[in-house]
């Protein structure tokens, strides 16, 4: 890694370090119930991270990011049941989901489908999964040994130690795995956006024609980041069905598709930490609201979305970063020199 890359990645590594501290501290401080709940939130944060990457950096507004998340969960569950172990199942889930995204993306990007239709197509794919899988409730719908179970879903075998199918992880240990997965995905994404590939993707977000006129095949870059994003979403899906213990077609519903976008809008496009953080905040807000009946959950989320779009259009993280930069600029010249040279933030 070059020194320039290290400097660009400093905020990413700082957040990753905080994540590691949290990962080891949390099980000592929090109750098991909270830890299990957290695992679900972590899985959703990985999903948010994947959309933050492809939308915030690649400029691809995918309305159906949750499709890759759900597909990852289903492929994991079905493979794990059939294979009788999780190691291969995780790999298959990530690879198959990425392959599916690559095939879908090929038609979208090489067909030069416009941005609006990209949203429509990805959302439609999500809803097709939703209604197809809901209809698989009979005993005839099975893949190998795994019954699909229609709207009741399938229960997911827990993760076991690598290559040792008899040693299952306890919920507390699954928390470690999920947190590690989140941190790894976060650092990977933070690294990716600072590579040549990532910087070209950002340039495509800024001005597709200009990137093309510089000689970059924008279709390939978009396909690349879309596929990688789907793979990350699949990792989230694997963690999700482990946290919850089962996967149902509800994962593909419109509510979840919209929620993913809300996390990124609230957290802020063009950062990775923002959407991941916003996911935790909104997850706990909705669980807190779930305990009372005065305010409707969806109503609150709707209001939050409107408030953000109107008042904090950039989202939390970019607004905070702007504010910090502005304060820093007021300081004397000596410290100013160390300001980062590029516009986008690796955070």
């Amino acid at each position, binding site marked *: 890694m070059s020194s320039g890359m290290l400097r660009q990645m400093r905020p990413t590594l700082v957040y990753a370090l905080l994540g590691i501290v949290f990962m080891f501290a949390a099980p000592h401080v929090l109750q098991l119930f909270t830890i299990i709940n957290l695992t679900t939130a972590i899985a959703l944060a990985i999903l948010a991270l994947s959309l933050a990457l492809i939308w915030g950096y690649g400029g691809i507004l995918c309305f159906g990011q949750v499709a890759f998340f759900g597909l990852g969960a289903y492929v994991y569950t079905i493979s794990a049941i059939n294979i009788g172990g999780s190691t291969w199942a995780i790999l298959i889930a990530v690879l198959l989901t990425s392959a599916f995204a690559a095939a879908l993306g090929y038609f979208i990007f090489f067909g030069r489908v416009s941005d609006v239709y990209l949203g429509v197509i990805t959302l439609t794919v999500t809803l097709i999964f939703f209604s197809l899988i809901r209809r698989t409730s009979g005993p005839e719908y099975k893949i190998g040994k795994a019954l699909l179970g229609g709207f009741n879903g399938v229960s997911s075998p827990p993760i076991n130690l690598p290559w040792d199918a008899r040693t299952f992880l306890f919920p507390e240990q699954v928390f470690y795995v999920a947190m590690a997965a989140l941190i790894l995905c976060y650092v990977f994404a933070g690294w990716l956006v600072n590579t040549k590939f990532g910087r070209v993707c950002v340039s495509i977000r*800024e001005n597709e024609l200009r990137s093309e006129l510089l000689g970059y095949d924008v279709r390939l870059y978009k396909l690349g980041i879309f596929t990688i994003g789907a793979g990350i979403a699949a990792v989230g899906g694997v963690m999700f069905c482990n946290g919850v213990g089962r996967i149902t077609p509800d994962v593909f519903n419109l509510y979840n598709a919209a929620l993913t976008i809300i996390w990124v809008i609230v957290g802020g496009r063009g950062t990775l930490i923002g959407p991941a953080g916003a996911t935790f905040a909104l997850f706990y807000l909705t669980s807190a609201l779930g305990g009372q009946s005065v305010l409707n959950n969806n109503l609150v989320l709707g209001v939050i979305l409107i408030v953000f779009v109107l008042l904090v259009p950039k989202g939390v993280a970019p607004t905070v970063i702007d504010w910090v930069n502005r304060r820093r600029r007021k300081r004397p010249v000596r410290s100013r020199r160390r300001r980062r040279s590029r516009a986008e933030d690796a955070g």
Partner: protein
Amino acid sequence: MTRQRGEVVVETRDLCMHFGGVRAVDQVDFTLFDRELRCLIGPNGAGKSTFFKCLTGQLTPTSGDVIIRGQEMTGAEPFEVASLGVGIKTQVPNVFDGLTVEENIWLSARRWHGESRARSLTAETIERLRLGDIRRTLVGQLAHGQRQWVELGMVVAAEPWLVLLDEPAAGMTHEETYRTVELIEEINKTSALIVVEHDMQFIRMISRTVTLFHEGRILMQDTMEAISADPRAREVYLGHRA
């Protein structure tokens, strides 16, 4: 007409680009030689930009051929044209507004070179175009003329052998225009150029062979002096300008 040095680098044969009933480009046969500097002029709507877009792959011609250095490029994607080593500046400035000047130029240099060469080439280009003071500024915050310079910087940083510029001096101050002429002459030492321009003073400063477009066709192709003296040319174009 000055027939120059060797090889034909750009050629169109019977090139047509029609939009419904509008014949924006009509049966254009055009030839550019290596290291040549050619100006395209013509009144508004003459079809200069449309012709330009057919060359750069932004438009797929209705019929006819575009040949660049012997390769059939009709209907190629813009990145394929650029990947031949062609530097392109569009009429509407196309820059990365949300990125810094430095990042804009680096993205161009990095297309052709590895990490370290791209970095040094970026630094050289910034110095050459005197963008040093604004290298950390977001391009979206710059004045129009400066954004044009950043775009020229991107073209230069790619070290192209063929440069296509659509109205490079539009919206520039007098001083900036003068420097653009200098830059074009400098580029021309190593590359062939096609420059679309409105500004007659600008054309006179560069003044090589000029191709006059009118209603989608090439009306004349000659030196600026000859075109200025021609009654037909004066009527369609020069009469209203210069």
